[in-house]
């Protein structure tokens, strides 16, 4: 009986018998009219039944936060007739997260092996999926590179080595700064526990990012009832024009 129980526990626990428990300071981000970015604290602990293993390497933590993935068209400019710069070639990237952040407790290559990265799609390059570029484009890879470069520049893609603080191989935390140019959707946060570059355990949780209040109302109206929205825009414009004229005529007299 006891032997059975021990086996059960052994099977239930992942290798090394370490599990990750994590939570977020908030799992709901509201984009209000005065939304100016938001900071989320991701923290947690390593749960284990046995003492910290001595043989394995250092315990490392890797945290990713990904926005909803959508297709993106990347266009490249080229000089047209030696005169002006215009968009010429385009590559469709099948799926790229609107926001992506990787924070690690050490240098990325040491925290995660390449094979594990391939399996779990952790690094920015792997999180983007680009299946086929048109035959006319020779260097499709440079388009994906450009996508990453542009989004990094806009702070939408962030790579932060040494940004996760691990205490006593048990407690960890990091903060994720969500920029003000955020789009709405469900964001996934993944917390990886690694030893010797191998994933020991993964925990996944969702952050809901939504436009609320006036933002929600206007966005829905614009897309669901575009005619009403357009007429409303005109009514506002006409009444503002009339009010300004009336007020200043009153002030003059």
């Amino acid at each position: 009986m006891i032997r059975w129980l021990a086996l059960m526990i052994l099977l239930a626990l992942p290798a090394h018998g370490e599990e990750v428990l994590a939570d977020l300071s908030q799992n709901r981000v509201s984009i209000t009219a005065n939304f100016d970015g938001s900071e989320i604290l991701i923290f947690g602990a390593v749960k284990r039944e046995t003492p910290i293993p001595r043989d394995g390497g250092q315990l490392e933590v890797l945290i990713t936060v990904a926005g909803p993935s959508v297709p993106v068209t990347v266009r490249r400019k080229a000089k047209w007739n030696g005169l002006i710069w215009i968009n010429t070639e385009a590559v469709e990237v099948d799926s790229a997260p609107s926001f992506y952040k990787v924070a690690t407790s050490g240098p990325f290559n040491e925290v995660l092996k390449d094979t594990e990265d391939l399996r779990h799609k952790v690094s920015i390059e792997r999180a983007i999926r680009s299946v086929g570029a048109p035959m006319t484009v020779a260097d499709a890879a440079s388009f994906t590179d450009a996508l990453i470069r542009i989004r990094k520049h806009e702070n939408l893609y962030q790579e932060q080595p040494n940004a996760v603080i691990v205490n006593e191989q048990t407690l960890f935390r990091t903060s994720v700064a969500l920029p003000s140019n955020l789009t709405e959707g469900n964001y996934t946060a993944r917390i990886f526990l690694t030893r010797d570059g191998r994933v020991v355990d993964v925990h996944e949780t969702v952050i809901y990012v939504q436009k609320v209040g006036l933002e929600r109302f206007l966005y829905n109206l614009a897309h669901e009832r575009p005619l009403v929205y357009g007429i409303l825009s005109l009514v506002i414009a006409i009444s503002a024009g009339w009010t300004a004229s009336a007020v200043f005529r009153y002030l003059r007299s």
Partner: protein
Amino acid sequence: MQIYLPIAEVSVNAFLLLGLGGIVGVLSGMFGVGGGFLMTPLLFFIGIPPAVAVATEANQIVASSFSGVLAHFRRKTVDLRMGLVLLVGGLAGAAVGVQLFAALRAIGQVDLLVKLCYVVFLGVIGALMFVESLNAIRKSRGAGGALPQRKKHNWIHALPFKMKFRTSGLYISVIPPLLVGVAVGVLAAIMGVGGGFIMVPAMIYLLGMPTKVVVGTSLFQIIFVTGFTTLMHATTNYTVDMMLAVLLLIGGVVGAQIGARIGVLLKAEQLRILLAVMVLAVCGKLAFDLLVMPSELYNLGTGGGHG
């Protein structure tokens, strides 16, 4: 104070937008122009997506021209009949322009088209205005030279479908006003401008309308063309940002009234030369961006069938 724009999906400073609206409003009040040709490029510079900037600016022009046309109605300087003819052409032009805009947006060339239109029109208008006001200043310094004679009869009077325009005191064919209307309508849709800066010279020099009814009539038809453009952009491209429009037009309508006061204090030639320099500066900046190798050769758009 940061404001998140629901359609543009960017966060911008509300005071910056109010200020921009105010400054452009002051200028438009001073010079008697819609200000769209200045505001739209400024919106590009602060990072509003061009498609949103163009559509939203059309909405803002509705407000400023409505404010302006009320004053002209009181002074009875609106030729309604001419306005309606221009309007028929304008609506047709705007419908074509919005479709063209949507098609080019799909193949990723809309930024180019908008910017090229700006460079060409701002360059031409700015240069003409600069030369004209320079001449005027020179003339006012020297002895008052002979005024240029306006031709009373040209090829325009030979066209069929003549119509009487009583307020303008004209009896001409409806074809030229219709064509002017179409041209301005297309420009309004593509550039997010009222087109007053093209309409006004065309009415004076091409149609031979008296100057006193030109501005009012132009404003009258601009309201409808930009209003129609706004509706078309809202229903085909979903690019009208109401939040952005409201911030801009609050600044704009107040600025326009202040600008009108300042304009009275300055000499007309000085005003025009200042405006010409400003127009040329905006044109120069846009041309520079097109001609010089961009620091980032790549740009992103939403993927297939997504919008």
